[in-house]
């Protein structure tokens, strides 16, 4: 039964991917992408990666989907011009050939993967006790591969600076995005009043259990960012001007705490990002608590877009 379900799921994912390629209107492709993200979430569940499924559900279907739908609507007027630029048949055939070769090479790699598969699961299991956390992914993210996580937090910050740098000169330091208006007594405002309190509880819950069960700061931060964006879209909140001091401090707070603890490791444990014996779990907790608000704010501001309204 599960095998049949997996086959259906894989076919549906492929079918929707084809749809995002062949759909005439970009909006239809974007809606297809939302559905595609939802199905990928289920695929992650079937690959026994519940942590990844949580991330994909919050980011792939939720944040990316909403962003693509909004962008597709805004660019609707450019569709006809783009269609005229469609390359000719020879180029399309050549592209299909290249794509087929890439896919075939990957498929051959998939069926000829070594057996038994190489794995770091046993080594992770042997050393997880030293970190004090129960969720192996949290152990990997914040102890064994902490450098990746630190760099990732900084890459996200760079992406946000990239978004800010796209502001027109007159709006630099101003409020991101356009003015959002909505009926204050309408259904959207109602949803944006009821959902965020629940969403904040769920986000903290997903974050909290991340120490021992699937969940964690990335998933929690994505949900928090989505809830804030909902309030903004309903006109109940406005994005703050990005030149505010508190924003700058909140954004760098998480990475700074992470780096400070990492640097302290040079002295106390002999290596950058190493934790002294017995202190691993509390230090991991401190880093996670520091990263959660920074990540949530960074993701939210990336989604809010470039500053467009100058501060008066």
């Amino acid at each position, binding site marked *: 039964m599960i095998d049949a379900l997996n086959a259906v799921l894989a076919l549906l994912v492929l079918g929707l991917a084809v749809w995002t390629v062949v759909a005439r209107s970009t909006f239809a492709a974007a809606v297809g992408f939302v559905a595609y993200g939802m199905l990928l979430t289920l695929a992650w569940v079937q690959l026994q990666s519940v942590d990844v499924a949580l991330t994909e559900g919050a980011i792939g279907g939720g944040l990316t989907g909403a962003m693509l739908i909004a962008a597709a609507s805004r660019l609707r007027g450019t569709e006809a011009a783009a269609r005229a630029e469609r390359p000719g048949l020879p180029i399309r055939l050549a592209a299909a050939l290249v794509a087929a070769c890439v896919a075939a090479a990957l498929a051959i790699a998939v069926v000829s993967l070594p057996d038994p598969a190489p794995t770091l699961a046993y080594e992770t299991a042997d050393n997880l006790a030293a970190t004090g956390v129960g969720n192996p992914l949290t152990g990997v993210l914040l102890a064994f591969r902490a450098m990746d996580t630190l760099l990732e937090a900084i890459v996200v910050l760079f992406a946000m600076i990239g978004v800010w740098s796209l502001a027109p000169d007159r709006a630099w330091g101003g409020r991101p995005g356009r003015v959002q208006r909505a009926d204050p007594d309408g259904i*959207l405002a109602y949803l944006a009043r009821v*959902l965020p309190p629940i969403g904040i509880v769920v986000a903290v819950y997903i974050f909290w259990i991340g120490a021992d069960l699937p969940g964690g700061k990335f998933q929690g931060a994505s949900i928090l960012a989505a809830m804030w964006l909902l309030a903004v879209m309903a006109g109940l909140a406005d994005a703050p001007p990005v030149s505010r001091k508190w924003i700058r401090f909140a954004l760098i707070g998480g990475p700074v705490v992470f780096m400070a603890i990492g640097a302290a490791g040079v002295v106390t444990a002999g290596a950058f990002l190493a934790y002294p014996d017995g202190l691993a779990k509390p230090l991991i907790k401190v880093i996670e608590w520091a990263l959660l608000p920074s990540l949530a704010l960074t993701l939210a501001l990336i989604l809010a877009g470039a500053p467009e309204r100058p501060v008066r």
Partner: protein
Amino acid sequence: MSLVDLFTVVAVGAGGFFFLAGSVGLLRFPDALTRLHALTKADNLGLGLVVLGLLPRVDGVLGGLKLIAIWLLALLASGAASQLIARVARRANPPA
């Protein structure tokens, strides 16, 4: 088959039926607002019956409350989303 299993089979089966009805309605009904009507049946009753069927199988009261919370959240989301979609649909095709 125990009584609990029977209950699950009946409720989940009924839930599956409403998802079937929702999809068929979404495909067969003539205009956007009637399709929306079919959609909400799947949202409210289909998911509700699936949750009802799974309730006796969870471990502990908290697990059950979580399932019910998921259903309530989905109700809130689908109710709000349906309203919003309906307004866009009516703007595109104003009633005669």
